[in-house]
């Protein structure tokens, strides 16, 4: 244990991202299960954006923009899997890929236009 109990409280003890990562997952799952395109895309965006935000915050990434692109890669792979493997659920696959594309677009736009890295992700 700490010699001074106050010490551990000094690093940043709050983060807005976990809540939204956790919210994005069920929204996306609902959308994908019931074939609701907007929910799938929106949920994945919420999830992906928040993951990128959190990665930046905990300094795994320097800016959220590149992180968004990185998150998009496994999503795109998953979407392709839904379309081309025996899972064979193209509608869902397209929704996932759409989310990935938007994330990439957001990442590109961000790295081109947002110079101020202090800005929040969205």
């Amino acid at each position, binding site marked *: 244990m700490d010699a001074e109990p106050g010490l551990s*409280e000094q690093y940043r003890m709050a983060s*807005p991202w976990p809540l939204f990562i956790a919210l994005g997952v069920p929204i996306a799952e609902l959308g994908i299960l019931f074939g609701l395109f907007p929910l799938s895309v929106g949920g994945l965006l919420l999830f992906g954006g928040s993951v990128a935000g959190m990665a930046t915050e905990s300094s795994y990434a320097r800016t959220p923009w590149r992180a968004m692109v990185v998150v998009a890669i496994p999503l795109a792979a998953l979407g392709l899997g839904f379309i081309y493997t025996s899972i064979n659920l193209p509608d869902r696959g397209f929704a996932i890929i759409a989310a990935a594309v938007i994330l990439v677009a957001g990442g590109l736009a961000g790295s081109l236009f947002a110079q101020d890295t202090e800005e929040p992700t969205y």
Partner: protein
Amino acid sequence: MEVNGQLALTVLMGILLVAVAAWIARVENWRSYSPIAGGGGYGQQDSYVSEEKPSGIIRWLTTVDHKDIGILYGAYGLTAFTVGGLMVVLMRVELFDPGMSLISNTFYNSLLTSHGITMLFLFGTPILAAFSNYLVPLLIGADDMAFPRINAIAFWLLPPAALLIWAGFFPLPDVLPAQTAWTMYTPLSAGVGAGNQANAGVDLMLLGLHLSGVSATMGAINFIATIFTERGDEVSWANLDIFSWTILTQSGLILFAFPLLGSALVMLLFDRNFGTTFFSGEGGAILWQHLFWFFGHPEVYILVLPPMGIVSYVIPRFSGRRLFGFKFVVYSTLAIGVLSFGVWAHHMFATGIDPRLRASFMAVSLAIAIPSAVKTFNWITTMWNGRIRLTTPMLFSVGFVANFIIGGVTGVFLASIPVDLVLHDTYYVVGHFHYVIMGAIGFAVFSGLYYWFPLYTDRMYQKTLAKAHFWLTMVGTNLTFFAMILLGYGGMPRRYATYLPQFATMHQLATVGALLLLAGQVIFVWNFVQSWLEGPKVEDGDPWNLRESGLYTAEWDWYDKKQQTAIADGGEESDETALTDGGQPEGDADDRDDA
């Protein structure tokens, strides 16, 4: 119509995303203005301070502090306990007379399903995470969990999980509550047949369960990483406390069990929605049972190991001596962890699986009874000739031991194939596992909640109310579940809303017991909430007088230091007392029966 719906959803989703973005922008902004100035220096206290700021609720939504997250888990678990408890009160009242009187049979089935799932997944696992989140870092001398943000994600997955699991009860069009029972046996749960189990309510419940599993797995990874890598220098494996040992083992079990449940649930969802036939073909029903119980039996030990840790922790403190055979308890915990994966088909003795396999599962089930029995002997020996102080936490721990003996012995009987073939699917099984789950796990949870009450509230509970809570719970538990064991001997099958008149007396006794339990829990909630808000402040870092017997431990040491920092810091302290109702600063060591 179709298109309009999609459009509406898109607009809604868009609004949500924009709102989230705006909110985050604001929060980030706010934080750069006053970088965690909130509490200044001492842990949990800033939560109270922040109540005066508009950011009070934001603190709870954004916290990654293990202590806050522990409190969130606790609040969540107790809420789920209330919901699940009220559900079963309705069921027990329905069972007061043999016919269908108060609620319909289908509604009974829905409540039955939801009660089980709520208690196991939304109360049991999370409430244990409340203890482990709050205590493990303190006990092992870590600053926080290894991955504080993952920790927060794991918690925040749970509220959506609860909403999905209960969605069937909400007034949604075309959504009915699941009636699959907590075991979700196929083909019923695959939506096959004439019933209404193909409806979306079941899908929502499966999704919710899946989420709760993801949450538990993330938490488990975090605990394993924390206990392996974040221990303080002094805390070697030989010095690790018993509660952390049980959490470590439990996390290992979760890591192997829950992902399997997750996969099985996804397969079931595919069967239900996308026309696969994992569980509907030849042998599909048995396949589900194998997958489910390969998760399901470890799950019962996931639920019982940390409570055993709590009891092993509390009993010595109020017996005035060390835990007898500490290392026996540690090694037998590990043994339970391994063996619990080798017994799953003792839930399937009556399915007609190969008798040779049945025999093997019986063998391992008998072997696993030993480590549990060893612990029981250790607890009793610890108390033997000890300087016993019958405080409320101690009472609940002793109650744990008493009830666990009945629950365990009935379990060993069920593990014997010939006995099980007679008693399977009767109330005997219900009695067995409730003795363990309510009588032991529930009791240990209460024991822990009372024992550490000063630690997380800075206050002391009202001991007379607490004693009333204990006795009502003890009597209620034994009345209810012993009646069920007798019902099982009489041949009363489980999971029915109605029954033959010959069972009426025992059912009525069980219902009376359940109402006693209800009364006890009402007292508990009152005591808990009122004492938290207005109870006498604890200013002593050693509210249980553990130093006297040399049994003082790290979490109280942390608390003691926190207290002293608080006193040193006058400014914050005045904020604090302003919130109290002029409560007299007073340490309450509960009563002591040392003769």
